[in-house]
């Protein structure tokens, strides 16, 4: 149940890994699509929190190319529908997320990422 809404907020938290530790790269993933309730107000409120290029990149890794490379100035309903789908309806079920900096692998199984660190990685 990792969706891009949380993936976009998630950085590596291993010891000393404080720069270039976002976004985690998807590896060998399988995804499932599930309908979610559309909520325009929530999406508008959430937009400023998103790292746009990271979101577009992650969506492409998952095979979705519906988002424009640049965040549009005009937030219309059509755009919000696409954003809704990308953020909330694509579920990564299996695979892994890899830190671009320290290369720590966070495995995903049954939709749940394992964020546990090894002893030498704990800050």
């Amino acid at each position, binding site marked *: *149940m*990792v*969706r891009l*809404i*949380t993936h976009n*907020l*998630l*950085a*590596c*938290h291993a010891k000393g890994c404080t720069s270039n*530790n*976002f976004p985690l790269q998807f590896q060998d993933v399988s995804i499932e699509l599930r309908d*979610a*309730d559309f*909520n325009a*107000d*929530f999406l*508008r*409120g*959430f937009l400023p*929190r998103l*790292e746009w290029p990271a979101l577009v990149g992650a969506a492409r890794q998952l095979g979705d190319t519906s988002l424009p490379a640049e965040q549009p100035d005009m937030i219309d309903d059509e755009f919000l529908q696409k954003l809704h789908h990308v953020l*909330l309806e694509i579920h990564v079920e299996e695979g892994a997320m890899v830190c671009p900096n320290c290369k720590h692998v966070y495995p995903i199984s*049954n*939709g*749940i*990422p*394992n*964020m*546990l*660190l*090894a*002893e030498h990685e*704990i*800050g």
Partner: protein
Amino acid sequence: MSRPELVAPPEIYYGDVEAKKYTNNSRIQQIQADMTYRALELLNLPPDEPAFLLDIGCGSGLSGEILDEEGHLWAGLDIAPSMLEVALEREVEGDLFLQDIGQGIGFRPGSFDGAISIRRFDNTLRRSISVLQWLLNAETSHPTSSPPHRLTRFFTTLHAALKNPSRAVLQFYPTSDDQIQLITSIAQKAGFGGGIVVDYPNSKKARKVFLCLFVGGGGGAQQVPKGLEGEEEDEGRVQFEKRRERLKAKSGGKRKNIKDKDWILKKKELYRQRGKESVPNDSKYTGRKRKPVF
């Protein structure tokens, strides 16, 4: 009285049997639900806006179901795979993570509008266990460090992950003033304001303690919220100040719908058919209208 957090790490204690224990106990589920409503109230979120929240020690998702019901989106963290499995079975809507919060959490600055942590009432022990308890007392089966170090790591990374201003409301069950002292001093060093809220301080049964932490001003008034006073009819049940207020104030008719009432009623019916016992009763609040953000 046995204190499991002194004996075994949480991911062992919350094995399959313990994790599944309350999936069919409607009374416990009602208690968990009420605790969650009270924590939401203490979060003091902007009224009628859906928020993005963090559920710390989300366990089997009883608290998360209430967040779903209230129209919030959330991510949940728990160290016990068996508990998360039950949450999956219950089909909660939040994104779940297997995580030891004592190792710190890795969310970008300002990710969440608020955080909650709800303790779990244990029917057999007749007492509750909270995530903070686990952090204070037990090692885990994973490599780890001392409790103060784990608390520091947790509070520091939690503070960073929260929006400014916002709040974190963590229910706990301190066994001594020293514990309260240790926890609040570490939270303060991590940058939090706020303090302790005690509901029904004079009732042995109904007494509840919340660590109510503020980032920035905490949103709204700077003071730590008042605990609830007076008599309580049933153990574990709390009254809700705001709900009572809302009962008095008629809600305006011009607001826009997010999840409409029919949808929620349909979903609740579905849950009931699946044998879920914690489905909240239908009320005038079901699918109540929320204000648009802009």
